[in-house]
C-alpha cells in the first residue's frame, strides 16, 4: 500500500514517473482508501466531506501536473464534487438521494474494501501448506486393487442359448383361409336370381341367405359389385332414391 504520491519526488519533469506512481492505486476506491489511511483515523470516524475535499484536491493536483487520469478517477471526482455540494446545502434544501445516506454508503464501501484487504493479509499470515507446514514428502499412496467377479448363473447361460436358437429358427408363415364370397360366385348368384326379379327388389335379397356372420359383409360387398357389373352389361337395372337409401335391383327388360 503506497502513500499518495502527489508531490513529484525527483525528476519532476518526467511525466512517466508520475504515471507510474499513480498506478499504485487500483481505481478510485483504492485511492480514497489510501487517503483515509493517510489520515490515520478510524474508518468509522472518517469525515466523508473532508475526504471528498482531499480527493478533489488530489485530482486537481494531478491535472495541474498534466497527468493522464483514467476516466473512472474523473467520474469519482465529479461524483464527490456533487456529494460535497449536496452535503454543504442546508438540511432543508437537500435533494432526494439523501447526501448523508450517500456519504454513509461510501463509508461502508470503504470499510468493506478495507476489511477484505486486511482479511487477505491475515489469510496469508496463517500456516500455509508449502510455506509454514509441509506434507509427507513421499507418501507411498493407498492402493485398492479392484477385481471384478462376474455374476451369471447356468440358467442365464442356457436361457441365453435358447434365446439365440429361438431367434434363428426358420420362420414359416401360415396364411389362414378367410371366408369370402368371390366376385364370380356373386355374379353367378345374382344373375340366377335376376330372371325372377321383374319388380324392384332390394339388394339384400340377392345375398345368399346361408352366408353366416363371418361371410355376411363379404357377400354383401361382392353382391353389390356383381350388381354394378351386371348393370354395366345391361343385364340389370339399379335404382337408389337417395344417398344411403336402400339399393333396388331388377332384371333388364
Amino acid at each position, binding site marked *: 500500500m503506497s502513500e499518495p504520491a502527489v508531490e513529484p519526488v525527483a525528476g519532476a519533469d518526467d511525466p512517466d514517473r508520475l504515471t507510474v506512481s499513480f498506478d499504485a492505486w*487500483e*481505481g*478510485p*476506491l*483504492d485511492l480514497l482508501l489510501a487517503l483515509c489511511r493517510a489520515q490515520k483515523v478510524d474508518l468509522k470516524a472518517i469525515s466523508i466531506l473532508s475526504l471528498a475535499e482531499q480527493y478533489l484536491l488530489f485530482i486537481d493536483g494531478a491535472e495541474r501536473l498534466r497527468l493522464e487520469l*483514467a*476516466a*473512472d*478517477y*474523473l*467520474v*469519482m471526482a465529479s*461524483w464527490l464534487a456533487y456529494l460535497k455540494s449536496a452535503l454543504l446545502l442546508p438540511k432543508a434544501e437537500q435533494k432526494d438521494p439523501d447526501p448523508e445516506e450517500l456519504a454513509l454508503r461510501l463509508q*461502508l*464501501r470503504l*470499510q*468493506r*474494501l478495507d*476489511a*477484505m*484487504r*486486511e*482479511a*487477505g*493479509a*491475515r*489469510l*496469508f*499470515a*496463517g*500456516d*500455509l*501448506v*508449502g*510455506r*509454514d*507446514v*509441509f*506434507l*509427507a514428502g513421499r*507418501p*507411498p*499412496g*493407498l492402493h*485398492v486393487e479392484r477385481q471384478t467377479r462376474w455374476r451369471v448363473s447356468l440358467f442365464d447361460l442356457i436361457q441365453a442359448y435358447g434365446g439365440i436358437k429361438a431367434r434363428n429358427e426358420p420362420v414359416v408363415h401360415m396364411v389362414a383361409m378367410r371366408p369370402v364370397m368371390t366376385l364370380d360366385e356373386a355374379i353367378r348368384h345374382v344373375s340366377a336370381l335376376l330372371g325372377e326379379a321383374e319388380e324392384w327388389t332390394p339388394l339384400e335379397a340377392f345375398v345368399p341367405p346361408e352366408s353366416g356372420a363371418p361371410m355376411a359383409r363379404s357377400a354383401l360387398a361382392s353382391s353389390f359389385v356383381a350388381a354394378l357389373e351386371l348393370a354395366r352389361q345391361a343385364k340389370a337395372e339399379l335404382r337408389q332414391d337417395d344417398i344411403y337409401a336402400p339399393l333396388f335391383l331388377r332384371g333388364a327388360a
Partner: protein
Amino acid sequence: MSEARDQTLRAVEATLFASETPLTLAQLRAHVGEDVDRDMLFRLARDYAERGIQLVERAGRWHFQTAPDLAHILRREREDVRRLSRAAIETLAIIAYHEPVSRAQIEAIRGVQVGRGTLDVLMEAGWVRPAGRREVPGRPLTYATTAEFLMHFGLASRRDLPGIDDLRAAGLLDPVQEDGDQSGLESDEERA
C-alpha cells in the same frame, strides 16, 4: 483402550501417513474398517500434539503435516510459495468471506473490474470453484472456495477465517448489490 482399538488406531495412522490426499472419516472407514470413529482421530491428534509432525483436520479431511513452528528449518529447501497479485489476494479474500459471490459483486466490493485472469489463477490453484448460478436476472455464475483452499491456508472450516465473526457482526459481510455504482471500474486484467 482395547487392543483391537489400538490396532485400528495404528491402521488409521498408517493410512493417513500413506495417503497422497487428506482423508475424510468416511474414506478412512471405507479403507480401514467400520470401527474407525472420530474419537480415534482426536486421540491421534493429541498423541502428536507436541511432536514435529501433527495431525490436523481441514474441511472435514484429516492429514499429517509438519508443526508450524518448525517452518524456518524446512522452508530453506522448499520455496514453492505462490506469489499472488494484490488483486488475486483480495479477490480470494472476498470469495472466502462472502461465498457464494458473483464476479459483479466482487467488482462492487473492490471498485475495479476483476480480470478473467484473476479468477483463473485462483481456480488453477484449486482454491476457488464455480458454485452455481444465482437466480437473479442474468443468472450470474457465483464462486466459492474449495476444501483445498481451507487445507492450504490451515483452516479447519470457514468459521476459522480470521475475524469472520467480527466482520459479520459489523455488517461488512452483508450481501452486496451487483451494480458497481458511482465509482468507475477499471480493469486489472494485466495485473492479475
